[in-house]
């Protein structure tokens, strides 16, 4: 019984880590992407939050069943590590690691042209003019944020670079 529980716990941990790690590896900058890789990554990501949580739950159940059966300290340490990994995986499933590197700009604010000291005259901007509104999105900022959700002259837009 102890072996079966330990094997189940190991299996749960491996599945959880693989589920979360696979899209991270497939969709890495400077690695090539394929259509199938994208399809797999999307399918995995779409379910990874509830799935990793469920695996964590099952893992905790297995640990509770195992705990008293474990005689040695090293056994208990291993089991604790497994739960930590399952927990870490469930947490990572809910993170957008791309936004760790390139933070989003949730509420874009604007300056008058005369106050925009940080933008040099020959810096490139993406300019949008709609109705009576004109907005300049400096490319150097957009190249970092990648995505800015905004509204120009009542029209919701997404500025990307």
């Amino acid at each position, binding site marked *: 019984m102890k072996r079966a529980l330990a094997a189940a716990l190991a299996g749960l941990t491996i599945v959880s880590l693989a589920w979360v790690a696979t899209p991270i590896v497939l969709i890495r900058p400077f690695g090539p992407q394929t259509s199938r890789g994208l399809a797999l990554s999307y399918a995995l990501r779409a379910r990874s939050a509830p799935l990793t949580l469920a695996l964590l739950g099952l893992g905790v159940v297995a640990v509770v069943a195992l705990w008293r059966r474990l005689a040695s300290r090293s056994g208990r340490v291993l089991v604790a590590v497994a739960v930590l990994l399952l927990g870490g995986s469930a947490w990572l499933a809910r993170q957008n690691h791309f936004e760790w590197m390139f933070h989003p*700009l949730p509420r874009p604010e604007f300056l008058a042209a005369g106050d*925009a000291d940080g933008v040099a005259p020959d810096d490139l*901007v993406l*300019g949008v003019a709609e109705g009576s509104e004109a907005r300049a999105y400096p490319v150097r900022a957009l190249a*970092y944020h990648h995505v800015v959700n905004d509204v120009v002259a009542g029209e919701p*837009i*997404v500025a990307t670079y």
Partner: protein
Amino acid sequence: MWKSSLDGKRLLFHLAGINNQNFIMRDEETGTWWQQVTGCGIRGPLAGRCLASIDWDEVTFALWKQEHPETQVLKPAPEFKDDYATADWEKEIAEYPTVTPGAAGDPLKPRDLIVGIVAGGAATAYPFDRIAAASPIADGVGGTPILILLHPDGRSLRCFDRRLDGEALELFLEPGSDPPRLLDGRTGSRWDFSGQAASGPLAGRRLARLPCLKDFWFDWKTYHPDTSVFTPGDEAAD
């Protein structure tokens, strides 16, 4: 630059990944993955739907301010602005490797800069070096007479449809004009960098802008595999 409403609902986007060095974004509302350069959904409930484009310009701040003195400018985020791209980021990125291999016999190297135009079902890539040497460039793409105009600042670029009242204009740079002016061969009217005739018989008329994209050759080729490449001597004969 996309309109972010679809079917009357606003979508909010996040950076979500990368697909052969063009990024993927995800909308909060449906979780669909969208390709940045095409504005089209690639995975998820809205896969196959495309966002509508909004007219935009890639020009220097100086030029934009000149044309739109009342413009608002995106305020940098104080906590992240130190991580924004440096002034010479374009030189840096030109050295990065690419993951899509260049095809044998490709006329251009993967990170060569081009300006891409799609019109009338056809696509043409104009090497930036060629534009810098020969601006303005008059050509035809898919039957549409086009004009690519590079400002003397060497960075601000616009593309126009050369047709007015159904006829294609021949446009020449007025030598020594600063700010740059174009003369049209038919009426001698003088046109400014925004595509408006400032003087002459056509004063007040405006050329229609054409969307054009400054991109790396490898990225343009990925999404326009049948693209032509403009070479010297290709100038349009109307």
